[in-house]
C-alpha cells in the first residue's frame, strides 16, 4: 500500500465537476439527515437514549478484555468457534483456512466494513474462492471495482444510469433501464441461484452481546439472513469494539441505529445469532486491526464507540459535496477522517482537514463522539508529527512569526491591502495560495482596523484606562 497522502481536495474537485451527480448526492444525503431529524422529534427521550448509548459504550470499552472473554466463553458453550485476528492478514488467513477445510469455493456475503479493512476479497480470489456480495449497493460497488463510498449506502454516489450500465455488462440487462425497480429485480434474479449454490455464507456483526454470546446483524434487504441460513457454514467477521454487556442494552442501540442512519425506525431485519443452525457450523473472527492501540490514544479512544450509522457523513457539508471515494479510504466522512489516520498517519494525513469544524457531526452522533473536536486534535497531532503539506506548513510558520510581532504584522497587513488592490491576478492566485483556489481574496480596504482605531478610539480610550494603572 502506498503511503502517499490522499489528495482529498483534488478528488473532491473532480467530483464537483459533475453537476447532476453532485446535486443528487448532496440532496439524497441531506434527505437522510432530515428523515433522521423527524425520527428524533417523535421521541422525547432521544437525548436520554444518546446519553445511555454513550455511557454503555464507554463502560464496555473500559472493560473490553473481560467482556470479550465473557462473550467467548458463552459463544463456545453454544457451539460457536471463536477466532482472534491481530490484523487483516491474520483475519484473511483464518477465513481462508476455514473455507479450505470445507472445500468451499463459493462464498456469499453481506456487507461488512471490517472485511473491507482487511481487503479480504482479493486475498480469497487468489485462493480460488469466488466471493459474491449480496447487499445491492455493495454488489454494485464490487462489480464496479470500487470501495463503498458510504458505510450504510455504499453506492450512494451513483445514479440509476450508472447502475444500468454496470448491470448491463455483468447481468446482461438493458443498459437503458432507468427504473430502479427493474434493476433491483435484476439483482434479485441474479443473486438467487448464487445464494442457493453457495458453499459458505459470511456476515459482519453490528453488535456483540457478552452476556449471551450473541452477535446481532442489521440489514434491510434480508441478505445477511439469506447468507447465513442457506449455506450450512456461517463465518462472521466482527471488530472487537462491537460489544455491549447485556441483552437488555440492545434496546437502546436498536432504537438509535436505523433512526440515525436512514431515518427509519428500525432496519427491516434485526437478527440475533447465538449458535449454529441445525446441521450447520458457525465461526466468529474477532478482529483487532489497530483497535487495541486506538484504545490507548487519550484524545481518540472514544471513536471506538462508533456504531457505523453514517449520520455524521449525511450531515457533513464537505462529505456531501466531495463524495466518499474522495477520501481514498475504507472509512470516509467525518468518522473516517478521525479513524483512518490511526491506520496510516501519513497516507490519511489530509483527511482531518476535510471539515469545516461546524460540529454538526458531533450533534447527530447517536453515541456522542466528539467528532469535530477530534478532527481538530488530529490536525494538532499531524502538525507535531510533521504530516502537513509543505505550502500549508510554510504559510503557518510564516503566519506564526508574523502574528508574534505586532509591528511587523501591521506593516504586513498594510502591504497586503496595497498588493490586493494593485497586483495582477496571476501573482495573487497561484499554487502558493491554496486558499484562493476556490475563493476570492477579500476586497482591499482603504483603512486597516488599526489605523481606524488609532484615529477614532485611542485618544478616547486612554482616560478610561488611567484608573486601572493607579491600583
Amino acid at each position, binding site marked *: 500500500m502506498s503511503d502517499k497522502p490522499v489528495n482529498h481536495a483534488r478528488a473532491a474537485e473532480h467530483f464537483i465537476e459533475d453537476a447532476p451527480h453532485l446535486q*443528487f448526492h448532496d440532496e*439524497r444525503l441531506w434527505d437522510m439527515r432530515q428523515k433522521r431529524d423527524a425520527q428524533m422529534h417523535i*421521541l*422525547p*427521550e432521544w437525548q436520554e*437514549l444518546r446519553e*445511555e448509548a454513550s*455511557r*454503555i459504550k464507554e*463502560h464496555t470499552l473500559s*472493560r*473490553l*478484555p473481560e467482556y*470479550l*472473554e465473557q462473550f467467548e466463553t458463552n459463544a463456545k458453550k453454544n457451539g460457536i468457534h471463536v477466532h*482472534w485476528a*491481530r490484523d487483516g492478514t491474520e483475519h484473511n488467513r483464518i477465513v481462508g483456512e476455514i473455507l479450505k477445510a470445507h472445500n468451499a469455493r463459493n462464498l456469499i456475503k453481506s456487507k461488512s466494513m471490517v472485511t473491507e479493512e482487511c481487503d479480504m476479497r482479493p486475498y480469497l480470489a487468489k485462493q480460488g474462492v469466488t466471493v459474491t456480495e*449480496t447487499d*445491492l*449497493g455493495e454488489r454494485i460497488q464490487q462489480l464496479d471495482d470500487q470501495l463503498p463510498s458510504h458505510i450504510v*449506502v*455504499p453506492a450512494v454516489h451513483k*445514479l440509476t444510469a450508472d447502475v444500468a450500465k454496470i448491470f448491463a455488462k455483468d447481468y446482461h440487462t438493458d443498459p437503458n433501464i432507468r427504473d430502479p*425497480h427493474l434493476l433491483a429485480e435484476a*439483482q*434479485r434474479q441474479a443473486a*438467487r441461484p448464487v445464494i442457493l449454490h453457495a458453499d459458505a455464507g459470511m456476515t459482519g456483526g453490528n453488535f456483540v452481546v457478552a452476556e*449471551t454470546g450473541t452477535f446481532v446483524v442489521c440489514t*434491510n*434487504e*434480508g*441478505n445477511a*439472513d439469506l447468507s*447465513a*441460513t*442457506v*449455506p450450512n457454514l456461517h463465518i462472521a467477521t466482527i471488530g472487537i469494539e462491537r460489544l455491549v454487556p*447485556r441483552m*437488555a442494552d440492545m*434496546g*437502546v442501540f*436498536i*432504537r438509535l441505529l436505523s433512526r440515525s442512519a*436512514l431515518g*427509519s*425506525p*428500525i432496519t*427491516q*431485519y*434485526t*437478527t440475533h*445469532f*447465538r*449458535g449454529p*443452525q441445525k446441521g450447520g457450523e458457525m465461526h466468529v473472527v*474477532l478482529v*483487532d486491526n489497530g483497535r487495541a*492501540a486506538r*484504545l*490507548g490514544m487519550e484524545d481518540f479512544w472514544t471513536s471506538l464507540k462508533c456504531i457505523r450509522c453514517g449520520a455524521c457523513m449525511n450531515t457533513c457539508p464537505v462529505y456531501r459535496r466531495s463524495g466518499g471515494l474522495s477520501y481514498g479510504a475504507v472509512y470516509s466522512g467525518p468518522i473516517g477522517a478521525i479513524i483512518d489516520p490511526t491506520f496510516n498517519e501519513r497516507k490519511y494525513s489530509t483527511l482531518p482537514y476535510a471539515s469545516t469544524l461546524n460540529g454538526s457531526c458531533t450533534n447527530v452522533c447517536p453515541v456522542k463522539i466528539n467528532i469535530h473536536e477530534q478532527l481538530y486534535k488530529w490536525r494538532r497531532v499531524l502538525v507535531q508529527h510533521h504530516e502537513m503539506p509543505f505550502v500549508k506548513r510554510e504559510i503557518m510558520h510564516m503566519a506564526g512569526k508574523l502574528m508574534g510581532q505586532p509591528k511587523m504584522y501591521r506593516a504586513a497587513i498594510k502591504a497586503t491591502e496595497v498588493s490586493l488592490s494593485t497586483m495582477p491576478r496571476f501573482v495573487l492566485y497561484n499554487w502558493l495560495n491554496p486558499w484562493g483556489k476556490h475563493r476570492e481574496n477579500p476586497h482591499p480596504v482603504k483603512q486597516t482596523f488599526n489605523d481606524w482605531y488609532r484615529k477614532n478610539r485611542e485618544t478616547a480610550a486612554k482616560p478610561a484606562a488611567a484608573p486601572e494603572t493607579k491600583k
Partner: protein
Amino acid sequence: MSTARDEILQALRANRPTPENHPLPPVATLGDLDASRERFITSLRILGGDVLEPVEGETLDQAILRRHPDARMICSNVPEAKGTLPVEKVKTPQDAATIDVTVVRAPFGIAEMGSIFLSEAQLPINSFAHLGQHIVVLLAADQLTANMHTAYQERPEFKTANYGVLMSGPSATADIQGVLIRGAQGVRSLSVWFT
C-alpha cells in the same frame, strides 16, 4: 509464542481507560409503553408490512389466496392453514426456494416497530422465513410488547434461540438512486394475521 488472543487482550488491558471512571448504567426503559394492537399496526405499515384482515366466514387458507391469488406453492408451518405444499417436504435450506407464500406463527410482536419475532422454534428450517416470495405471519394480539426496551427485557427468546430474527415489514432497499423498493432479496411482502 503468545497467541493473537493473548496479545490482543494484553494490549487492551494496557491501553484501556480507567474502568472505575465508567460505571455500567442501570438497564434503561424509556419512551412510550403503549403495547396496543393499534400502535403495532401503525408501525407495521410505516415499514411496509400489512394486516391481513379476515372477511366473515373465510378460512385462513381462503384469506391467503385472496391476498395472493397467483400463489401455487403455499407452505404452512401452522395448524391454522393447510397450504398446498406439506411442510415435511422442506428438508434442506434450499428446499424453501420454490415457495410462493410461507405461513408461520410469531411468538410475539413489538408495538413500537411493528416487528415480529421468528426463531428456529417456529421454522422447519431457518431459510424458510426468507426464501419464499411472500410471508404470512400469525400473531396473538395479547403477545405484543411495547418497545425495544421491554422486548429485550421481557422476552426469554432473545437469550434462548440460536437464531432469532425480528422482521419489520418485508425486505427493502434504497440503494439505487435513493428509490425505496419493497421486496429486495428476502420476502416481497409481509402480512400479519391476528389470532
